[in-house]
């Protein structure tokens, strides 16, 4: 049924059907809606089941089911306010800091339900790290920025261990060569792209299993963006990555699977190649071809 609709929408030379709008489709799907594509995978690092998120009475996310595979890069795309960032922030319970936010559903990190209120968020966030939209280094030295996580979690007993962690993390973030001579200068003195890589280094310094990235390149220029994307590619060897992005090209470039959110619903999850050449759902199609958004 979907493909038929899509044929009509695509064939606008001869198509004479009445205009299909994003709203009408969303309405049609409001009652009975099911994520199309392939939301599950075999080696899931994180499995989210029946996720509903509310801000006060307003529902922001409707019944989302999604798996994120081990060492997989999953990109989440969708128009503004579609709930993709909210969903991402549920994965390490950053929404806890928002009073009016209520999260329902199961979030399994391996076998552990992380949405359990009894679960301590401190070890959770050590396992699921996060990189934010705006580069946000602490107003401390480069060294202290990277060392902060290991310090609060007590990962290094000796100074030399800490030095090693800092160096390794900066190496992995591709920043070591640029900053090794000025480790004790403020991290805020770096360029935007370097700051973001510093933030990534800071995140991987605690050796998380999953890294969440919330539009990590939206404040960066194309060269810095390219470096971050290259970094994401390298990191995916060892880490599981979920990335929210506004740039569809970025999703296409870095991710293995792409999830499309629309008005709080997970519309489609598929292999990235498929989403960008032949998406299953007409809303995905419309969004990625730039017909709304």
């Amino acid at each position: 049924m979907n493909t038929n609709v899509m044929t009509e929408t695509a064939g606008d030379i001869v198509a004479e059907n009445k205009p299909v709008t994003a709203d009408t489709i969303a309405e049609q799907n409001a009652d009975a809606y099911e994520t199309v594509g392939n939301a599950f995978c075999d080696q899931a690092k994180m499995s989210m089941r029946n996720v509903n998120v509310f801000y006060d009475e307003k529902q922001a996310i409707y019944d989302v089911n999604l798996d994120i595979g081990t060492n997989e890069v999953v990109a989440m795309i969708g128009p503004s306010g579609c709930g993709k960032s909210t969903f991402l922030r549920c994965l390490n319970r950053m929404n806890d800091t928002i009073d009016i936010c209520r999260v329902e559903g199961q979030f399994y990190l391996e076998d552990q339900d992380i949405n359990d209120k009894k679960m301590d968020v401190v070890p959770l966030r050590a396992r699921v790290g996060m990189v934010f939209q705006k580069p946000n280094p602490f107003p401390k030295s480069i060294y202290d920025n990277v060392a902060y996580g290991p310090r609060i979690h007590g990962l290094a007993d000796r100074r030399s261990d800490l030095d090693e962690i800092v160096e390794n993390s900066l190496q992995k973030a591709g920043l070591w060569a640029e900053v090794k001579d000025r480790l004790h200068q403020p991290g805020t003195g770096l360029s935007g792209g370097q700051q973001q890589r510093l933030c990534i280094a800071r995140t991987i310094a605690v050796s998380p299993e999953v890294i969440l990235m919330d539009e990590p390149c939206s404040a960066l220029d194309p060269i810095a963006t390219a470096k971050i994307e290259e970094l994401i590619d390298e990191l995916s060897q060892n880490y599981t990555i979920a990335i929210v992005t506004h740039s569809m090209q970025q999703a296409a470039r870095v991710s293995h699977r792409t999830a499309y959110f629309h008005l709080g619903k997970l519309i489609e999850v598929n292999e990235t190649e498929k989403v960008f050449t032949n998406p299953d759902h007409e809303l995905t199609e419309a969004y990625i071809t730039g017909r709304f958004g």
Partner: protein
Amino acid sequence: MDKLNIDRHISQQYNSALDDLKKEFLEMGGVVEKQIIDAVQSVAEADVDTAQKVLTTEQDVDAREMAIDDLCTQIIARRQPTASDLRLVMSVSKSTRDLERIGDEASKIAKMAIAISESDDVPHGFSELRNLGRQVHDVVDMTLTAFARYDVDLAVEVVSKDKVIDREYDTAMRELITYMMEDPRNISRSMNVIWALRALERIGDHASNISEQIIYLVKGLDVRHQSADEMVQQLNQE
């Protein structure tokens, strides 16, 4: 959220660029179609003028091919098309090449028409040529219609019709070979006809290729190098 029309791109320019691409492709298709008609006619009626016209048109077709290629490159460079847009650009880009080849084949037929007209007697096999020519023209016409309408069924029909054309070609060939064996003096004349038939058969193949691209364009399925049955089966699975 305001009412958004997902029929159209937000960018009007992008919209019109894609529309232009489709229009240019269909126009080129029209020109090539006319070439086929003219070429077959020039052979059938030994009309040198028409044949010459086919040959001149060939330059126009070449120019159109380059223009469409350029347009495709422009769209890729500027818009980074995705999904259906990407498939449109890719399939047009590939199909244009096929269209151009069809033009080439038509020119071959036209050249042959000129060669035949220089000898007086009517060679054997003209009826087959005309018959095959009509069918090939039908197939090309169907292909262009399928493209214009994004009609997968029609495209599938083109592919299966191409098989019919292939069989007809085989029959005609066998007949001509028999004819040549009967009287070896006919060989050089018959060879010309064979070349023309061969060209027509090639045109059918190109039309079939374009149809496969149309299926890719509409369905996102790569159905090349398959039998028609397999293709239908795969389409039904979707």
